[in-house]
């Protein structure tokens, strides 16, 4: 049994669960859209909206992520599947990577939706190079978010008060992603006169974040979830 095949099995399973239940499609995605509309009500100014659109996109992503992460582990504990995985001695690193990959796929889909919404509702108009940069930003940010979300989601999964514990633990950690992804997206969208080239250092930050938390999560997930 190689680690890679377990990773694939876990990721495929999580995505199959989503295809079977459609919770992210039917509930989280509309939630994210509502958040975007509420931002527009709160700010009530088209000039400001297109200026702050990148930040709103990523804030909406983070809020949606909290829900998706909770869901990802609720599925495991609904009928004791996580216990069963533990008893089966399934490699926790493979569980971590597999669940991270599934989370990344779902987050990426949400981000695409949110960016398109910002394009339509907030009046942002990126150049072709900007679209490319936005794509790279989304990939880099999503990988990091997937790792951190799975890591802290697993820790909070078994805990009492997990609904409040998860945001408390997770949001401070993802601050670099919010900052980096927002700045990079601003560059991509040209918000506030930013040029596309200004975004690349921030994408570097996102990549560093993703690599560090991928490694740390692989090491820490087992001890955190198991004990």
């Amino acid at each position: 049994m190689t680690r890679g095949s377990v990773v694939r099995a876990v990721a495929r399973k999580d995505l199959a669960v989503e295809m079977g239940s459609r919770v992210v499609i039917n509930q989280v995605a509309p939630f994210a859209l509502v958040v975007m509309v509420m931002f527009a009500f709160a700010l009530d100014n088209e000039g400001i909206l297109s200026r702050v659109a990148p930040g709103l996109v990523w804030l909406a992503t983070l809020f949606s992520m909290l829900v998706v992460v909770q869901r990802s582990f609720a599925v495991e504990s609904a009928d004791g599947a996580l216990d069963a995985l533990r008893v089966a001695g399934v490699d926790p690193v493979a569980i971590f990577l597999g669940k991270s990959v599934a989370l990344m796929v779902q987050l990426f889909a949400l981000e695409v939706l949110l960016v398109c919404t910002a394009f339509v509702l907030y009046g942002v108009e990126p150049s072709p190079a900007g679209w490319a940069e936005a794509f790279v930003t989304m990939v880099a940010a999503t990988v990091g978010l997937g790792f951190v979300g799975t890591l802290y989601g697993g820790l909070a999964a078994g805990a009492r008060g997990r609904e409040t514990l998860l945001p408390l633990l997770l949001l401070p950690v993802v601050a670099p992603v919010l900052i980096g992804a927002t700045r990079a997206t601003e560059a991509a969208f040209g918000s506030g006169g930013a040029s596309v080239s200004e975004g690349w250092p921030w994408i570097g930050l996102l990549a560093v974040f993703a690599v560090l938390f991928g490694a740390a999560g692989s090491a820490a997930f087992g001890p955190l979830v198991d004990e």
Partner: protein
Amino acid sequence: MTNVVELRGVVAVLGGFPALAGVDLTVGRGEVLLLQGPNGAGKTSVLRVCAGLLPVERGGGSILGMDITAQRDSIRSRVGLLGHTNGLYLDLTVAQNIRFWASTVGASRDEVSAAMQRMGLDGRLASVKADRLSAGQRRRCALASMIVRRAELWLLDEPHAGLDAAGRDEIDSVLRDAVAAGATVVVSSHELERAGALATRVVTVDGGTVRDGGGAR
């Protein structure tokens, strides 16, 4: 060969409550041990300790010759637990569930279809979502994944609960096959008549302790 299960003075705590208050238990290879006792006596906790799910607070012991605290990871891949929950993903179909389990332990396609056939899960049931299944059908799913796992120590928590007569017979026959294949079984049950027929030994769990209900039968 050492005993399959050896617990010495095991105390296990659940949210501050001593679920196990000093358990001594020995199970030899090939035995079918029946744990009986009232609700809340600690039967489930004994099984969860043996499966390496519930950490041992005091005392110690070994499972399949491996230390129960230091070598929990190695123990786990060699035991199978059928608890109150079935470990199913309710949004997946029966076939998806069992195939997932098979893929995490590296079972072949043939083994999977054999196990599904054995539990009567092929055909129409295979494509039904787990949350539409009856309690008995869910049990059968869980048993199918146990079969696929080829565990050396089978731990079953009230496996007969909520099943009709046919379902119970099925479980008994799966257990007999497992024992014939060399597995050791620890099973908890209210239904002494039924489980007692299989058991080679019966012990009583009460107040988080084990009273040996007499030697081998």
